[in-house]
């Protein structure tokens, strides 16, 4: 009698961050997780990445903030969040009760603000890692200003790294000329992983009114439309850096995640797909596990970077 095949080992590590499985939910698409309580088995996720947290509260951008585009969407939320103090007081109690990793996305206007956020979150019970957002296309200061310059990006990464004992992921922007150069400098700053990619800058216009379809005119493009861009970014960067890469962009089903992993991603984030189906990330996880079993692989790690070029 043959033994039933063992289930593939889905555990992954991103530097010092160990995850039960490689499927996370992306920042800004999952709120503070309690919004999906009862709809999604939260404890089954590899990690929850929170919406971006800044030192002071941010009100965000004018309406409309959402516009549907071919196989995707534009958003210009503008990093609306209650600020660090209210986040810790009001959002962390629920998050720390989850039996999944909690990754707090942080953003600042200055290098010092990033460092202060990192230091303040170091002592907060329930925070498992930080994700540094230097790639938001929707705010003037900060955000993408750091992510589009290799020196500035590395400076933020190093400052955060020095300010906290927590594992540090850095989420990079695709809106740059030389992503590999930026990724290499950030990796060299000693971070635990790179997350690729944030949204692509985009715009949509209502031709009848002649007005942009977003209140902020320009926003960030996400959804299936950007998946090839994300897969290319993961492929190029993962071959150039030593640190693990987390693939994010256009993942709605398990095959999309498998594509990212084959390209070189150690873990993945499911973003906009959650808006269609709150449980999309768990569907990705189940399908990926089944796929690994069909390939006869013992772990998800064995699939990483297996694209044959």
């Amino acid at each position, binding site marked *: 009698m043959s033994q039933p095949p063992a289930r593939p080992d889905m555990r992954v590590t991103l530097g010092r961050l160990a995850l039960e499985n490689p499927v996370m939910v992306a920042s*800004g*698409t*999952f*709120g503070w997780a309690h*919004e*999906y309580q*009862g*709809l999604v088995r939260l404890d089954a996720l590899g990690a929850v990445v929170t*919406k971006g947290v800044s030192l002071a509260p941010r*009100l*965000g951008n*004018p*309406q*409309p*903030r*959402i*516009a*549907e*585009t*071919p*196989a*995707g*969407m534009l*958003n210009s*939320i503008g990093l*609306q969040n209650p600020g660090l103090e209210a986040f810790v007081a009001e959002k962390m109690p629920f998050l720390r009760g989850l039996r999944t990793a909690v990754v707090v996305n942080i953003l600042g206007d200055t290098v010092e603000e990033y460092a202060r956020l990192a230091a303040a979150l170091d002592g907060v019970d329930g925070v498992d890692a930080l994700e540094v957002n230097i790639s938001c296309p929707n705010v003037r200061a900060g955000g993408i200003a750091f992510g589009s310059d290799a020196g500035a990006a590395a400076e933020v990464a190093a400052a955060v790294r020095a300010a906290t004992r927590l594992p540090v992921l850095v989420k990079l922007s695709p809106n740059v000329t030389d992503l590999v150069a930026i990724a290499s400098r950030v990796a060299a700053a000693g971070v635990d992983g790179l997350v690729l990619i944030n949204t692509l800058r985009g715009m949509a216009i209502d031709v009848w009114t002649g007005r942009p379809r977003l209140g902020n005119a320009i926003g960030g493009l996400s*959804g*299936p439309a950007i998946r090839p861009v994300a897969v290319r970014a993961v492929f190029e960067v993962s071959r150039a850096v030593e640190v693990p890469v987390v693939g994010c962009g256009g993942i*709605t*089903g398990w095959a999309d995640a498998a594509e990212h992993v084959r390209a070189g991603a150690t873990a993945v984030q499911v973003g*906009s797909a*959650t*808006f*269609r*189906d*709150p*449980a999309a990330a768990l569907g990705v996880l189940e399908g990926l596990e089944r796929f690994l079993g069909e390939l006869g692989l013992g772990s998800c790690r064995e699939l990483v970077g297996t694209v044959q070029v």
Partner: protein
Amino acid sequence: MSAPVQIQAEVLLVEPRARQRIVCLRLHAPAVARAARPGQFVMLAPGPAEPLDPFLNRPFSIHRVPDEDSLELLFAVVGRGTARLAAQPPGATLRLLGPLGRGFDPPAEGPVWLLAGGLGIAPLRFLGERLAGRPVRLLYGAGTAEALVSTAGLACRVELATDDGTAGRRGPATELLAAALAELPEAERARAYVAACGPEPMLAAAAGLCRRAGVRAEVSLEAHMACGTGACMGCARPIGGRPQRVCAEGPVFDAREVYP
């Protein structure tokens, strides 16, 4: 408010409800229908089998709960998503999330006016049916008679208004409200209640009329939404001095908060 659920809802019926491309979609959705309250909404996938394009779910007010197992949604066929939904045959299944948001909160007694502008009739029909037996009047305006949805079967007094005068009074529906409020005895004002849904200029005008008359009013707002669950902040806007999410804190708000 009960927690929303996600189900595969079966299309029971798609039928025209006005001459101007307004259709009613009836879905078999017991868990949602039983929990739904007037003013709440659902997010509906724009087609069966998870299309990647169009990508996002559509928010729809619950128009009617004709029986405890089904829901009716009312919408105009204006774009790719609604065209696809209107073309679904009976038996097709669509992913449905709901009921979502905060609905109307009418007082336990006293006179009620429902002020509907255009497709703003969608949630107010449900509210009118739930308030059957009470002194309820529907004030219903649209651009033209062809855009009016039949109110047959709704057991309340109906007054119509159209911009072009092809049905009811010529002019905005808010003139119906102004006339109704003017007739309301002073002593009745504290007990009276107005529920409004429609274009924002109409809601703003109605809020002003109600404020001056000392009548409590609630308005149901529309917004572009991605998630419908409060996660994405796509529908948040300043209301009452702070950002509020139309999908989670609303879609029904106190009129004085929205239009101070």
